[in-house]
């Protein structure tokens, strides 16, 4: 590093840039890193999707057709870990990398090398997670972890080598998320343009700020929990073994102390971006900016004190059951404020229905179903019936596919023209939306009925009475899976070319990010703008 570079880094860093593949692995630029996160997320989305299509193919008919139950169990667990840690979280971090510096008027993220490290931890972790599948083909070990993504002891204590791979993969993924979170918090606190107070901060940045705090509060606990699992497996400790005075339920508490906030970690970035989309295509300012900020904070605080509603049937004392039921239901209050603000943003607006707007509205409706069914699951008495049934599967797919993934798709269609400087195909986008939303409901709506009728989760075979709904669900899943090829094609052709767009892209768009050209210059805000 020469002195010249250090005095005027912004001008010289462009010249320092490598070409070709070296550019990508050595980059310190927030836009390059954001692009790598988004690309990684898209690839993992298809990897995790293929796994679950195997599962749905097996479940198309009763009986065992395609795979052994052990392999079925491996597919569902790795599908979940890949979709959560490989697709949704990297996609959200990619958005943060791309958009937060643009939105707050910063030249880059606060800690650019750390930013690059955060990304490059992901590919090795994904490799570790899926390596046992390959090793099993060569007769080494018995495949990936077969416990489901929750690693419950004692099953995970007894499981094969795949559990060790998953534990170490989770450690590395956790370090990646923590580095990303620290970077985002520091960027938001330290890199805002003069005049941009915290209350003027765009909602997307606010959503991510709370997400980052939740990651910092909970991911280390998951790391601790899987470390205890590792020592129980290999170093003779008795954390989760009653014979030594430990307790398997302890693992469930530790896991869900992380696992429940994780739901909000996946959703808060989306809740942050949805208001921007609604406001843009309603040609109206965001309704209740301040109210939404306080709702994010309330949800963040509540989310770390409600974890045991995931284990209401594990045998908790009655006062604990009542506390966790009511505190869980209390989350619906700030969430209702958000729903109200979303709808009020659209009300009396001059709405137009481009693809991002369609996805945003689809998100509100379907995520609403997730919220309402969640209230049912939080009820202690009702949960005794629903727990570990397909009702739960349907509920969290409404939350995490319709809420999480469709929220990410909203953001991708909304910001892709900003990133590439080209407009995507509106026709293909709309086709993708309608195929997605219809086949999604075709896949998961029947699973509510299956769960109510008593079909348990995580089984490769089932009673004959469940056959019709499972067949419908499988058909829906395949349409849903293959519709995503349109999404990938649309992104690819938009990156390659297409009609040029100007900086503002959408006529109703407001915010600093739209003041820059599309695509934005190498160092986003070379000189910080002043916000009035």
């Amino acid at each position, binding site marked *: 590093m020469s002195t010249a570079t250090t005095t005027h880094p912004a001008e010289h860093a462009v010249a320092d840039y490598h070409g070709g593949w070296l550019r990508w692995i050595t980059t310190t630029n927030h836009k390059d890193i954001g692009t790598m996160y988004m690309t990684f997320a898209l690839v993992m989305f298809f990897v995790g999707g293929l796994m679950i299509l195997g599962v749905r193919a097996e479940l198309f008919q009763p009986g065992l057709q395609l795979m052994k139950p052990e392999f079925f169990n491996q597919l569902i667990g790795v599908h979940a870990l890949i979709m959560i840690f490989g697709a949704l979280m990297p996609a959200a971090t990619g958005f943060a990398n791309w958009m937060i510096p643009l939105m707050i008027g910063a030249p880059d993220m606060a800690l650019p090398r750390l930013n690059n490290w955060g990304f490059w931890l992901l590919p090795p972790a994904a490799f570790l997670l899926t390596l046992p599948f390959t090793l099993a083909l060569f007769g080494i070990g018995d495949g990936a972890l077969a416990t489901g993504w929750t690693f419950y002891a004692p099953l995970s204590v007894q499981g094969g080598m795949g559990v060790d791979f998953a534990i170490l993969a989770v450690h590395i993924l956790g370090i990646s998320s923590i580095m990303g979170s620290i970077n985002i918090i520091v960027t938001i606190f330290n890199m805002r343009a003069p005049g941009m107070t915290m209350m003027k901060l765009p909602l997307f940045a606010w959503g991510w700020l709370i997400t980052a705090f939740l990651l910092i509060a909970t991911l280390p606990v998951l790391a601790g929990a899987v470390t205890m699992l590792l020592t129980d497996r290999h170093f003779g400790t008795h954390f989760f073994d009653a014979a030594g005075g430990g307790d398997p339920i302890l693992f469930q508490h530790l896991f869900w102390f992380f696992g429940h906030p994780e739901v909000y970690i996946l959703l808060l970035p989306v809740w942050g971006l949805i208001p921007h989309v609604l406001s843009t295509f309603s040609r109206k300012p965001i309704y209740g900016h301040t109210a939404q900020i306080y709702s994010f904070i309330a949800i963040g605080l509540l989310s770390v004190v409600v974890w045991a509603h995931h284990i209401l049937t594990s045998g908790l004392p009655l006062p604990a059951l009542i506390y966790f039921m009511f505190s869980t239901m209390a989350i619906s209050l700030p969430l209702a404020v958000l729903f109200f603000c979303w*709808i009020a943003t*659209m*009300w009396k607006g*001059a709405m*137009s229905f481009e693809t991002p707007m369609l996805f945003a509205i689809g998100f509100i409706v379907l995520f609403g179903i997730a919220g309402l069914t969640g209230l049912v699951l939080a009820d202690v008495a009702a949960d005794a019936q629903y727990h570990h049934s397909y009702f739960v599967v349907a509920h969290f797919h409404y939350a995490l596919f319709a809420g999480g993934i469709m929220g990410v798709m909203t953001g991708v269609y909304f910001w892709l023209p900003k990133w590439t400087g080209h407009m995507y195909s509106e026709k293909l986008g709309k086709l993708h939306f309608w195929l997605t939303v219809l086949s999604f409901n075709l896949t998961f709506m029947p699973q509510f009925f299956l769960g109510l009728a008593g079909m348990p989760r995580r089984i490769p075979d089932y009673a004959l009475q469940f056959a019709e709904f499972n067949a419908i669900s499988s058909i829906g899943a395949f349409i849903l899976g293959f519709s995503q090829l349109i999404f990938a094609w649309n992104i690819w052709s938009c990156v390659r070319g297409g009609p040029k*767009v100007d900086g503002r892209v959408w006529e109703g768009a407001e915010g600093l990010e739209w003041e820059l050209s599309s695509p934005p210059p190498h160092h986003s805000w070379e000189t910080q703008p002043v916000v009035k």
Partner: protein
Amino acid sequence: MKPAFSDADLERRRAASRRLGWLLAAVVLAIYIAGLFVKR
């Protein structure tokens, strides 16, 4: 790029979203009131 909307068109859209809002509110209210008469 997106098509430009005329002022008249934007006004028409504003009116439509206002009407739809009231309609949805009425439906929700109707469901709420109907719920009061459902015997458990």
